[in-house]
C-alpha cells in the first residue's frame, strides 16, 4: 500500500488521480495533508496540485458521466467523510473502464455509497437554506452564524445570492471559520475570525438594528400561535427540526 497525500483541494484530488495512473501506484490510499491516518508501512507519494493534470482527468470524466454525476464528486469531497477519496477513486476507475455511464448502477457498493453521501449533503444543504436566520445590524447587514454537519457553504451560495439580491448579507460557518459575504454585487469567501465578537452577546446586541428585537419577537409570537394544540406531535416536530439546530433558530430561543 502506498499513501498518496494531496492538499485537500478539488484540483489536488484530481491531480492525485492522474498521478496514480501516471506512476502506476498499486493499492493507493489517498489522504489529505495533515491527516493523522498515514500508514507506517509502504511508501508515501506527495502530490503537488497541477491544474493541467487535474483538467485532463476532469475532461475525461465529464465525457463519461452526466453533469449531475460529475457534480456529485464535488459534493462528496465537501462531505469530509473519512475515506471518501478512496471510494471516489474506485468509482472513477469503474467509470473510466466501463463502456456505458455507471452512475445509476445502484447494485455497486461504491456507487450506492456516493449516492447516499450526496443525499446527506443535499439534506444538510436544504436544512441550511431553511434554518438560517438572519439578524439585521444598524448598517443594514443581515448576518447569520451556522455550524453545519458538512462543509455546505459552497453549495448554498447560489441560493442566497439569487434570493437576497437587494440586501448585504453574511453567512458564517463557526466550525470551519469562514463565511460568505454578499456586498450587493457579488459573493466572496471571507475568513476573518469572528469568534470573539460572536461570543460577546451583549455588545453584539448594541450593533443590531433598532427593529431587530421587535421582528424576532413577532416571529416567536407567530410561531407560537400558528401551532394547533389539539394536533400536538413533538416527535414529528423534533424529527423535522433536530435539536442541534435549535441554537440558531430564533423561534426556539427565549426572547
Amino acid at each position, binding site marked *: 500500500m502506498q499513501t498518496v497525500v494531496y492538499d485537500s483541494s478539488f484540483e489536488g484530488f484530481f491531480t492525485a488521480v492522474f498521478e496514480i495512473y501516471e506512476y502506476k501506484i498499486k493499492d493507493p490510499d489517498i489522504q489529505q495533508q495533515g491527516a493523522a491516518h498515514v500508514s507506517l508501512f509502504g511508501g508515501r507519494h506527495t502530490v503537488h496540485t497541477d491544474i493541467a493534470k487535474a483538467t485532463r482527468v476532469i475532461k475525461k470524466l465529464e465525457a463519461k458521466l452526466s453533469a449531475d454525476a460529475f457534480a456529485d464528486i464535488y459534493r462528496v469531497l465537501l462531505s469530509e467523510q473519512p475515506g471518501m477519496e478512496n471510494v471516489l477513486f474506485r468509482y472513477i476507475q469503474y467509470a473510466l473502464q466501463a463502456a456505458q455511464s455507471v452512475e445509476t448502477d445502484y*447494485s455497486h457498493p461504491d456507487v450506492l455509497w456516493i449516492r447516499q453521501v450526496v443525499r446527506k449533503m443535499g439534506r444538510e444543504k436544504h436544512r441550511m437554506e431553511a434554518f438560517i*436566520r438572519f*439578524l439585521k445590524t444598524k448598517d443594514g447587514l443581515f448576518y447569520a452564524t451556522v455550524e453545519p454537519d458538512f462543509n455546505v457553504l459552497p453549495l448554498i451560495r447560489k441560493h442566497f445570492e*439569487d434570493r437576497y439580491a*437587494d440586501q448585504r448579507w453574511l453567512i458564517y460557518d463557526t466550525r470551519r471559520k469562514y463565511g460568505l459575504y454578499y456586498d450587493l454585487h457579488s459573493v466572496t469567501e471571507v475568513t476573518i475570525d469572528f469568534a470573539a465578537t460572536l461570543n460577546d452577546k451583549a455588545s453584539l446586541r448594541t450593533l443590531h438594528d433598532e427593529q431587530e428585537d421587535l421582528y424576532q419577537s413577532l416571529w416567536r409570537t407567530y410561531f*407560537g400561535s400558528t*401551532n*394547533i394544540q389539539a*394536533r400536538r406531535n413533538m416527535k414529528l416536530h423534533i424529527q423535522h427540526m433536530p435539536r442541534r439546530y435549535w441554537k440558531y433558530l430564533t423561534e426556539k430561543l427565549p426572547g
Partner: protein
Amino acid sequence: MSERISEKLTILSDAAKYDVSCASSGSDRKNENKGLGNASNGICHAYTEDGRCVSLLKILLTNFCIYDCAYCISRKSNDIKRAAFTVQEVVDLTMNFYRRNYIEGLFLSSGIFKNADYTMERLVLVAKKLRTEHQFNGYIHLKTIPGASDELMQEAALYADRLSVNVEMPTKESLRLLAPDKNRNDMLKPMRYIDKALTQNQEEKKLFKKAPTLAPAGQSTQMVIGATPETDLQILYMSHFFYQKIHLKRVYYSGYVPVSNDNRLPAMGTPVPFIRENRLYQADWLMRFYHFRVDEIVSPQEPLLDAQIDPKLSWALRNLQLFPVDINKADYMLIMRIPGIGLQSARKICEARKFSRLGMHHLQKIGIAVNRAKYFITTSDAPVLKDYQPMQIKEFILNEGSSKYKPNFSPQLKLF
C-alpha cells in the same frame, strides 16, 4: 404600537391556522432586477410543535366576518377577539420576515367584511404593493373570495403565485347544513373562472413570450374531514373531480379540530381524525403520482379506506392475481404499484437492473421496505413465497411492522 401589532398577529394567525395549506412550491418566479426573493421549490423554514411545516406567513387580513359557518372559528356568532391588519402592516411583516429568511412568502386570507369585492380588493392591494412597490418576488398565496368581480380575480392572478377557494364541505348537503349562507356553486364559480383564465394565459404565453404569467402555481382547495358524515368514496371522487375538471394542483384534507359547541358538529374534545386524514392523503398521492384511478382505491362496495393499512397495500391485496411481480423485468408503472416501493425506489430499480440482475440484498440497500414488498415480488435470489391469502399477508405485515397507529387497533384493553 408594537404590542398592538403583536396582539393582531396572535389573533389573526390563530384564526388562519386551520387552513392547512402551506405549500410554497410549483411556482418559478425569478428574482428580477436585483429585487427581493424568488419562488421555486418551496422550503419549510420551521415546524410547529404539531409537526406541521411553516413555509408562509399565514394570516387573515381580518377575522371580522358577516357569515356564520358552524365549522369556522371566525363565524360571526362566535364570541372571540376581533382584529384587522392594515394593508401596510401586512406588507411590513412579510418583507421583514422574508428578509430574515423566516418564510417563503405570504398566505393571505380573510373573513368577509362588508362584501366580497371590498374584501378581495384589499387582499389584491397587499399583493400589488409587495410586487410593484417592494419588488418582492417571494411566494404569494391569496384566497379568492366567492362573489368577487371577475376583474379583481384577474388582478389577483396577476400578482399571486397561487389562488384558492376552500369548498370546506365535501358535499353540498353538508355545506347547506353547516354554512346556510353559502352556496356550493358560488364556490365553484370562481374556481372555474380562474381555471379558464389560467388555461387561456398558457395559450397566450405560447404566442407572446412577454405575456404576464397568471398564478404560476395554480389553484388549490381544502375539505374538512370528519365534521360531517361523508364517506371516503365521496371525498375522493370530489378530489378526482377537482383534479380532472378544474385542474387543481392540490386538494387538502383537514381533519376537523372542534372549535365550537354546536349540535350539528362533533363535540369539543373529540379527537382529530388523524388516521383518516393520513389515509386520504395517501390515496390522494396514489392518484396524483402513482397513476391510480380513483375507482381502484375506493368503490361503492368498500366506500371507506382501511384504517389499519395504507390504500396501496389494500389495493394490492384486492388484486393479488397481478403478483408476484418480477423486479428485473416488470414495467416501471407496475413496479411503482408494489407495496413498500416508492417512486424514487421504483426509478432506482429500473436504472440499476440495466447493470446486473437485482436480488433481495440489493433492494434492501437501495432502501425499499423489503418486509412489505417481499410478498409481492420475485428477485434473482429470493425464493418465491408460497401463496398466501390476502388476510394472512395483512396479518404478517401488521405484526411485523411497528405502525405509529398500532395502539389504535390493539386488541388489548387499555385501562389508562
